[in-house]
């Protein structure tokens, strides 16, 4: 297990370096630059700007200098929001995104696993069918349809919850988190149901039954751990998708998160801001994947013993 972890850890910086390299050269290959606008800049001004922002010299030498600064933890200045560094912008806009993501993940995990368990234990009942039909609808319903629907229902018709905005941990968080969590809740429910049904047909469950254990003990102590394995292994991709989904949800509910900053920066050719957000999201996703794999390793004793 320890060696397996170590091997995975070695890959983290390599993946990050590949990501940084791809993004850096991709951004530079694109037409247009951060200072190109309708207005023609006087020749001196543009030169001064490029020098000031370390954009002079060949692209490769810029890449080298960027990496050196990156290792020191400096993501560079923002080229569009002139008074801010990328570090400052990220530290301002990251908390809403993270809070939204975590809340959505928790909601979808609780709701999804619970629905999946109920569905599996009452399999082939009306309850099972309706839950699973709801799950397929949940997967098929685009976030940007579900979001406005919830807004209309809960804010404009019933006036229970605020329409949009961000106030930290508050009522404002409920609608966006539910919107973002729905498709994942649906997937978790399907995975839990399938996993549980698989495990319940295994021989060791029959053994447990013949020993005369109660259904409750069988499900909670013997079956649940194995049934949740597919859910855990889906957590990695889920975390990555939640960051994407949050781009949309942030727009619907007007949350000042990092997603919008990312799209803006890409549109504005704000080189350092693009790099900063991609690196940040990349690191987050890689670390989450790693954490998921560790949890999986603990749950499934087969992992890591291959070699």
């Amino acid at each position, binding site marked *: 297990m320890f060696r397996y972890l170590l091997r995975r850890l070695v890959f983290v910086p390599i993946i990050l370096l590949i990501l940084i390299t791809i993004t850096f050269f991709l951004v530079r290959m694109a037409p247009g630059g951060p200072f190109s606008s309708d207005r023609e800049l006087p020749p001196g001004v543009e030169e001064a700007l490029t020098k000031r922002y370390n954009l002079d010299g060949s692209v490769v030498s810029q890449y080298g200098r960027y990496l050196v600064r990156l290792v020191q933890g400096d993501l560079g200045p923002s080229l569009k929001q002139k008074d801010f560094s990328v570090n400052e912008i990220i530290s301002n806009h990251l908390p809403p995104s993270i809070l939204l993501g975590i809340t959505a993940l928790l909601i979808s995990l609780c709701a999804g696993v619970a629905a999946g368990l109920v569905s599996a234990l009452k399999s082939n009942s009306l309850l099972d069918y309706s839950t699973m039909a709801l799950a397929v609808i949940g997967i098929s319903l*685009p976030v940007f349809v579900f979001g406005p629907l919830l807004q209309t229902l809960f804010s404009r018709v019933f006036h229970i919850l605020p329409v949009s905005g961000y106030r930290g941990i508050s009522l404002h968080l409920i609608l966006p988190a539910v919107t973002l969590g729905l498709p994942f809740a649906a997937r978790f429910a399907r995975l839990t149901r399938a996993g549980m049904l698989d495990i319940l047909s295994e021989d060791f469950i029959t053994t447990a039954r013949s020993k005369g254990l109660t259904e409750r003990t069988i499900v909670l102590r013997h079956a649940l751990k194995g049934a949740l394995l597919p859910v855990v292994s889906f957590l990695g991709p889920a975390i990555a998708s939640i960051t994407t989904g949050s781009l949309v949800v942030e727009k619907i509910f007007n949350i000042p998160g990092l997603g919008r900053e990312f799209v803006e920066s890409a549109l504005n050719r704000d080189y350092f801001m693009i790099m900063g957000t991609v690196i940040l*999201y990349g690191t987050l996703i890689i670390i989450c994947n790693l954490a998921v794999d560790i949890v999986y390793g603990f749950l499934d004793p087969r992992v890591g013993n291959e070699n």
Partner: protein
Amino acid sequence: MKTKMEQVHKSYSPTRLAFMRLLRHRLALFGLFLVVAVSAAVVIVPVFYGGSPKLTRVWLGAKSPGFTHPDCLSKNIFIVGTEAETSPSLSDADELIYQTKNFSRQEVRITTRRGKINTIMFTDGARHIEELDTSTLKGDLFRSNDDGTPGEKLEQAFVLKKNSAPPGGLFDEGSRVLMMLLIKADDEVTQSIVTLNNSIVTSITVKQDNNEISSEDLIIKGREVISVIADGEERRVSHLLGTDKLGRDLFIRILYGGRISLLVGIVATLVSIVIGLSYGAVSGYFGGMVDSIMMRIVDVLYGLPFIFLVILLMVLFDRSLILFFVALGLVQWLTVARIVRGQILSLRESEFVEAAKMSGASARKIIFSYLIPHTIGPVIVYTTLTIPLIILEESFLAYIGLGITNASDSLGSLVEQGVRMLGDAGENWWLLLCPSLTMIFILFGMNCLGDGLRDSFDPKRAL
């Protein structure tokens, strides 16, 4: 029990068995029906329905489903001796009679001082200026654009009073001057008769106040038309699902949008399958060192936040259809590679591969002719589940404003426009509801079908 035994004795191929199981899967059949119905509608109906998704009738504005109006364009131009510029559906008529009403235009200029109305001025063209203390604006009211053309339509009639606060929502934040256009209909009706010969205009007669004037050219604006009669028959256009704010027919736009969405979904999935299938098959067949290196690469790529790279590609480069296919396909091929590799890994030890090797078949022949056909089951399942995923991803991109340019709008962009044009009280509900429902039908059908296929191909459920 007995029937099961019989089926085992009649040995069918695994694929055949899978399809037999599929036919008993009700939800999957329902999904298949939905998918086939929507795809057929999207492909076939535009051929008969006519019209273009880009045809605008700005004066019409957003109209609810079932709305009908006289069959004319925003601007109908007739010049004797040249081809008539009017609705294509009227081109085979020999005589067109347009009944039109004239509209008077007034410009209204309102200024505020310290949040209260300071002046209310009416101008008729550029000459006559009237200043009023109070006024109720009756007729169709539009915000004027900078070039003097009518812009956003203001829904309610306003009562304006000097030295009182202007009605809410009228002024943009921070602006103190508002220009509006007030358009009123006259009572007088003009009748214009145009005779055509093979869509070439031969004569134009205008009847007004019992006067008959023949003319060389005529321009009829769509918003003034009361009725259009072609060869004695009144012609109207109806909009099955209504129109959007630019007067574009929503039904046609949904059909064309569905085409684009399905095209993106199918082509991007095919891209991912071609790459993933070849990669996974090679990796699985050769095994050993080659396999571990190739799969390590897949692991590394799996860890990348690909969707960000896709967004970057979309933002930084020309957002063409081809780029969309490539970018979305590139994200998905990793999963195919993993699935296929696992399948091939277990297949390559089987006797028929051994036999093929013995008879001197090349690695390429074994992989592509013998091994890949065996992975068809999982690949079909994967395809049906990936198409909706990609359609959804494309709509995400369209929603954050990174849709395909230079093509008609996809379902995702239609939904996005629907959200934007919904209005505060949801008065333009059909603009959101109709494209969303179409999209949900496609995705729901595909997902049900994919689930059914997966169950059917699952060996654990085999007879």
